[in-house]
């Protein structure tokens, strides 16, 4: 079964272009054959298993497709999890169905161990429990880290009423007293709330502590430029910049990217051997010359049930070790006097 071979490839966690290529093409064939909307999508683009010979040729779907089409090889009723994108301006949420979470978990186990934490630690999680957010892949991800690595004294410091600032402060003070390094897990905007709350009150966490943030899945917190955010993070918690790690992920994927700390800026996003990125021209679908800024497309072998190739709305450029994420494309203002999309939507109350 292909899922077993993919799982084995993930657990082996080694660069192997040939095996990756073979598995991607096989998985594409299965997705083409078993997922009707995806097949129709591929046929409209005139790409079929006959003509797709390399993973780079696998037709990619835009993230929007997860909102409007059911992308699932197995019937939805038989899937064990549905991770949804956060509600956006349109109100519609993308749905990523997982037939089972074995591969998702295998993927995160390998990358977490390499980039986030590899031994039991005291962990503070600034994100709700998965039981409260069953459709959140991030909740599942963070909870699993706490379950696997959380030493006694670990805890969750967010609930429906918000961040438990005092409890969190106590957690930090105790760790400092016990000289016990900690791992902080949270969404970027949660840390911004912490900055606002604690203000001048800083902490000096024990050596070996790490701060992990993730950018809300679709672009960073807009209040602070990236460099400033990490400087503040480092200062607030007394943790060196190299120990501030960011994770880039999305509900439409099953695998995450990480940077290696923010001692250098901009931080390059690095992924494991079973995910690839292309930087493309969104109209032709061609690769841009190395280093040029374009649209980011991911090819995730771990996306076994949905679609392996996903085009994001994010802009970035290629780097030796991975890619650099720039965020959204800068809005192009109207050049003529023809009514623009944003105004149109405002008037009609339309959705996107």
């Amino acid at each position: 079964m292909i899922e077993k071979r993919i799982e084995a490839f993930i657990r082996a966690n080694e660069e192997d272009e040939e095996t990756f290529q073979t598995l991607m093409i096989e998985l594409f064939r299965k997705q083409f054959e078993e997922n009707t909307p995806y097949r129709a999508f591929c046929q409209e683009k005139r790409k079929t298993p006959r003509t797709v010979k390399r993973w780079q040729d696998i037709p990619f779907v835009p993230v929007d497709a997860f909102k409007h089409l059911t992308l699932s090889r197995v019937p939805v009723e038989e899937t064990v999890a549905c991770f949804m994108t956060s509600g956006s301006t349109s109100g519609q949420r993308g749905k990523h169905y997982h037939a089972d979470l074995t591969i998702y978990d295998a993927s995160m186990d390998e990358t977490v161990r390499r980039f986030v934490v590899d031994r039991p630690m005291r962990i503070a999680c600034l994100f709700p429990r998965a039981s409260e957010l069953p459709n959140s892949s991030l909740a599942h991800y963070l909870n699993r880290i706490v379950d696997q690595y959380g030493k006694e004294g670990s805890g969750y410091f967010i609930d429906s009423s918000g961040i438990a600032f005092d409890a969190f402060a106590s957690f930090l003070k105790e760790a400092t007293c016990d000289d016990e390094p900690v791992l902080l897990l949270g969404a970027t905007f949660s840390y911004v709330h912490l900055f606002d709350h604690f203000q001048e009150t800083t902490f000096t966490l024990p050596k070996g502590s790490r701060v992990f943030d993730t950018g809300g899945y679709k672009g960073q917190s807009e209040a602070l430029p990236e460099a400033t955010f990490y400087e503040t993070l480092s200062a607030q918690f007394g943790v060196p910049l190299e120990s501030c790690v960011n994770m880039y992920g999305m509900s439409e994927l099953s695998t995450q990217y990480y940077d290696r700390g923010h001692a250098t800026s901009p931080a390059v996003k690095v992924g494991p051997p079973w995910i690839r990125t292309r930087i493309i021209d969104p109209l032709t679908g061609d690769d841009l010359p190395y280093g040029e800024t374009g649209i980011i497309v991911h090819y995730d072998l771990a996306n076994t049930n949905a679609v392996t190739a996903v085009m994001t709305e994010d802009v970035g450029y290629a780097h030796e070790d991975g890619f650099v994420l720039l965020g959204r494309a800068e809005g192009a203002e109207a050049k003529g006097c023809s009514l623009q999309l944003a105004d149109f939507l405002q008037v009609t109350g339309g959705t996107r």
Partner: protein
Amino acid sequence: MEGQVIIVTGSSRGIGRAIAEELARRGASVIINYRTSEEEAEAVERAITDRGGDAYAIGGDVTDVDAMRALVEAVILEYGRIDSIVHNAFASYRFDPAERVRAEHVDWASYAAQLDGSLRAVVQLNALILPYVKASHNGSIVHVLTNLIDAPLVSYNDYTTAKGAVETYSRGLARDVGRSGVRVNNVAPGLVYPTATSRSTKKEVRDQLTAQTPLGRLAVPEDVAGPVAFLVSEEARFMTGQTIYVDGGFTMNRS
């Protein structure tokens, strides 16, 4: 024509095979259609893929609309597209100058049979593939006719009349589908030797033809493949409604 999917009807042997191989050599994925010669068709498919090209043999009688519908569906399922078609298959005909029926004695049933086998086959199959060809970036239709429509050295009038009808049909079609980006052209070869149908043409007739051919010989299948490939290619992108005569100059002064 990299990546384009082109159907060549009747391409298991002779002219059809030569056309298929030339198109595949230029990067197209060729559908090798055959009526009964399955083994030969598969041999063509193999020969092409061995050389690194792409081909797919699918059987079907061009006069059978259901068979053609199935063929089109099979191609779409496999490739998702049809860019061009070369109509090379025609209802069988025996070219025998001695045993032929002279023009004034050819009966209506014979004309009808040839019209059915040539014109109707083309009309039906074109109707099936046009929606896909229109969606192509450089879609075109090519009919392989005969130079007899202009210069009947020997009169096989049922055969030739039907081919002439295809030429006229192709022009009206070219006029209307041109705005949809589809080109329709024809190639009119002279006697091509040796092929299954020309094998029985006597040497004396062949010599007579050769004597009147400026390029001093009869066509071989590969001679026809080049002009067909040209018409299908981007190079002919501004040509439509044309009939190219490939007979060594035997016929000249066509308007």
